């Protein structure tokens, strides 16, 4: 396989399926952490050239909080968790068990808490993936940025840019029903990681 653009429907379905398992694990962790029921959407797997990828994210200019972790080694990939800016404060309130609407501004402690959320989500996701592939994933510490979605995703995509003109974005949305708070979880595998995944799944 040379490029993401060559993936077929069966391969995409297989990727969605493992992502579903990974995200299910992550949703359980999130639910335990927040003490609330967390639902999750049917995963989406999109392949698009770089110049179109932003269309899947609700526009490059929308303001988001983005937590980013890199996995190096045998299976390099990027993990990105995006929360729309207007929902970040609610997220913080949930984490700290405060009445919704308490947080009006972000401080260092909030930043740490958001990073920890990303850490736990990515950890549970990767654990599930690991059980499947028998690979050990060692993610970096999370980094956090609050800015335009395009600027944040662009930096993540640069890692893939050296290998491909297309990005494969596997997306899971976590939803807190009561207040409709949603977070978007993205897995961005590099080409060689994708090959390994597909081989393990028996669809390559």
């Amino acid at each position, binding site marked *: 396989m040379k*490029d993401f653009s060559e993936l077929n429907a069966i391969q995409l379905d297989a990727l969605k399926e493992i992502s579903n398992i990974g995200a299910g694990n992550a949703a359980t962790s999130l639910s335990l952490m927040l003490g609330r029921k967390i639902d999750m959407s049917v995963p989406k797997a999109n392949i698009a*050239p*770089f*110049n*179109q*990828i*932003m269309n899947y994210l609700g*526009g*490059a*200019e929308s*303001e988001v909080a*983005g937590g*980013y972790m*890199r996995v190096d080694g045998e299976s390099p990939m990027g993990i990105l968790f995006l929360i729309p800016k207007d929902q970040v404060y609610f997220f913080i309130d949930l984490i700290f068990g405060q009445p919704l609407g308490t947080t009006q501004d972000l401080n260092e402690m909030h930043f740490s808490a958001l990073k920890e959320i990303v850490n736990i989500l990515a950890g549970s996701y990767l654990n599930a993936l690991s059980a499947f592939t028998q690979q050990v994933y060692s993610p*970096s*510490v999370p*980094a*956090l*940025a609050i*800015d*335009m*979605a*395009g*600027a*944040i*995703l*662009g*930096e993540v*995509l*640069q890692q893939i*840019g*050296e*290998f*491909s*003109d297309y990005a494969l974005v596997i997306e899971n949305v976590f939803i807190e029903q009561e207040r409709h708070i949603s977070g978007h979880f993205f897995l961005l595998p590099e080409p060689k990681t994708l090959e390994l995944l597909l081989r393990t799944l028996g669809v390559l």
Partner: protein
Amino acid sequence: MTTEPIKVGMADLRAAPAPLTLITTGLGSCVGVCLWDPITKVGGLAHIMLPDSTQSRSIQNKAKYADTGVTLLIEEMVKLGAQKGRLVAKIAGGAQMFNFPGASNVMRIGERNTEAVKKCLEQEKIKILAEDTGGNFGRTIEFSTTNGQLLIKTISKGEKVV
């Protein structure tokens, strides 16, 4: 006459004659290169993603890299009547959105993109009239082919025209 601005996506480039406006949204560590011929009023915008095509395994898309992107942008503009010797440049972007503790050189891609773009422009003997690069924030830029003005919008640092 109102015309919709022409959108330039990531790792993409476009050239256009006046009075069109070229826009690229959400530049992070990518660099937006704007070239303009003040006489024929032909403008061009490239959304550069990576510094060097020679380091890469996939160079199908020339607009992605500083070296091949700048060259291709000039070619596209010349096709629309621009004269290479008259071109002037304005550049923006090259930020570092994420700060990893102990980040290596490889991670400072914004800085490397900016350096690579400047080097290419110097080689092509194109003067940089304005530069707004670095920092840790995203930029959206709008380039007017009518007057060569570049509007730079950010979320946390306001707007400016260079």
